[in-house]
């Protein structure tokens, strides 16, 4: 394993658009705004950004259009096909492109009208796509959306390890408490375990409505550059210690064939990212664990080794993942409560956490002065956060991870 790039690269800028349900804007306009916000955040001018990476599911605007709107002239760009878990993987690819001398500073963006155009629940344009490949043997039975496919893993896990819906609801409760201190969050309302349990079934027995993420219109951006360059820029550098992605389980498009079905890709990704970063679980102060559903977070906590297999239910109900706990998770509210961004908002949040300048309701938040009062409508800055870890989820079989240090 090549550990020579540990700490050599940084995330120097982050930015996003408003999170909405009904943007009435093109992905082109939103993508340009998110990148511009990240450039302003870093103090970069158009001539300073010479690389672009994006990911999409046929639902975005190519870099070639957005570079034009921003006055960029990249030496390197690629638009990659992919959803969740692409964020971390592209951070690694950006480092590779810079290391190869193809560019010096790379803007990674995701732009999606995930609510008003291509809904990840599988309605809208995507539902009408023709049947090919493995889908031949799934679609006649009605299988189409992400939750249906993921829930095979969830159900088997639930029955093997005795997970209760109340256990899962604690994840939503924690993330909603965090979102209540995030002015950007779509769903700022704090919820209770009972609220989750009383929301309607989406997929029985594993997901009520409030166990599912918020389909959102948004664009997001993170900018990667060398540590050397980052030290001259506007923000405190956030160093990339290690990144992995997109690591897979055996079996690719039909991983259900290969047991144990309740194991997710983090089982393979986790040991590699910790070794690469040169840190242990104990060193990590804040996590960003992909919560497309409450269950995706629980499975990843187990397979990344935050607890033993089968003890995720204890981890998520123990208070560890709450603000004020040992290792808060998704302090922005994550996909369940802030916005569904295919993983970008969780990386952005951890960058802000490590800078100490999370944009909460503290009057001097952006100067790094926080109250650490985690009650509703106040602070969400983790005290003295030094190391963060992101765990991105593509499917049960595909995952990525990123460890950063301030």
């Amino acid at each position, binding site marked *: 394993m090549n550990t020579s790039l540990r700490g050599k690269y940084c995330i120097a800028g982050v930015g996003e658009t408003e999170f909405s349900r009904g943007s009435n804007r093109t992905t082109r306009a939103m993508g340009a705004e998110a990148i511009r916000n990240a450039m302003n955040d870093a103090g970069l001018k158009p001539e300073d950004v010479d690389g672009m990476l994006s990911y999409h599911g046929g639902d975005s605007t190519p870099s070639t259009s957005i570079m034009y709107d921003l006055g960029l002239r990249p030496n390197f760009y690629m638009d990659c096909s992919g959803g969740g878990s692409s964020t971390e993987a592209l951070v690694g690819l950006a480092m590779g492109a810079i290391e190869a001398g193809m560019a010096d500073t790379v803007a990674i963006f995701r732009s999606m009208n995930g609510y008003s155009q291509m809904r990840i629940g599988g309605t809208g344009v995507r539902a009408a796509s023709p049947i090919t490949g493995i889908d*031949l043997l799934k679609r006649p*039975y009605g299988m189409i959306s992400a939750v249906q496919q993921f829930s095979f893993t969830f159900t088997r896990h639930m029955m093997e390890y005795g997970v209760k819906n109340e256990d899962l609801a604690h994840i939503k409760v924690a993330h909603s408490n965090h979102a209540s201190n995030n002015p950007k969050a779509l769903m700022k309302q704090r919820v209770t375990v009972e609220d989750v349990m009383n929301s309607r079934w989406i997929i029985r027995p594993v997901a009520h409505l409030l166990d599912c993420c918020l389909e959102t219109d948004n664009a997001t951006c993170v900018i990667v550059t060398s540590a050397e360059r980052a030290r001259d820029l506007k923000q405190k550098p956030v160093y990339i210690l290690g990144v992995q992605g997109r690591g897979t389980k055996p079996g690719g498009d039909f991983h259900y*064939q290969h047991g144990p079905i309740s194991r997710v890709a983090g089982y393979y990704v986790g040991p590699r990212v910790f070794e690469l970063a040169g840190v242990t679980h104990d060193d990590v102060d804040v996590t960003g664990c992909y919560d497309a559903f409450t269950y995706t977070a629980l499975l990843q906590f187990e397979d990344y080794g935050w607890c033993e297999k089968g003890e995720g239910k204890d981890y998520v109900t123990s208070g560890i993942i709450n603000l004020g706990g040992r290792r808060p998770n998704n302090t922005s509210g994550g996909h369940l409560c802030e916005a569904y961004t295919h993983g970008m908002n969780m990386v952005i949040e951890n960058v802000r956490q490590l800078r100490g300048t999370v944009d909460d309701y503290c009057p001097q938040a952006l100067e790094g002065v926080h109250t650490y009062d985690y009650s509703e409508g106040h602070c969400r800055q983790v005290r003295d956060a030094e190391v963060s870890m992101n765990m991105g989820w593509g499917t049960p079989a595909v995952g990525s991870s990123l460890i950063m240090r301030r």
Partner: protein
Amino acid sequence: MTTEYQKPLPRPLSPELTKPFWDAANRHELVMPRCQKCDHFFFYPREECPRCLSPDIQWASVSGRGRLHTYTIVHQPVNPAFREDAPHVYSVIQLDEGPRMISNMVECDLDDLRVDMPVVAVYDDVTPDWTLVKFKPA
């Protein structure tokens, strides 16, 4: 049947690869690809054995017996054609011969579903040309 069948049908893009499966289903039989070199049953159909990469594949009858490996109960089908069936059950079936396949569980009270419960194939002639292999409690 008076109304046209609205759900997706398994019209394959490469019929030669999957035709024996659907032909057998029409006869109310379940067949699986089997490697002639290493005896491995596998699914879904491919041109080479995923274990030993041999191209020598024959279709072989299987018992239609297995266990419910995992499942989900869908209350809100995204495809409107499935709404009349809701709530209905997607499942992964572990066949006794080794492969797993995706199907629907039918003829079962939703509260009685359990992982690893024994199941057996049933054949649903959804149109004159197409039969879907589904499973019920054994």
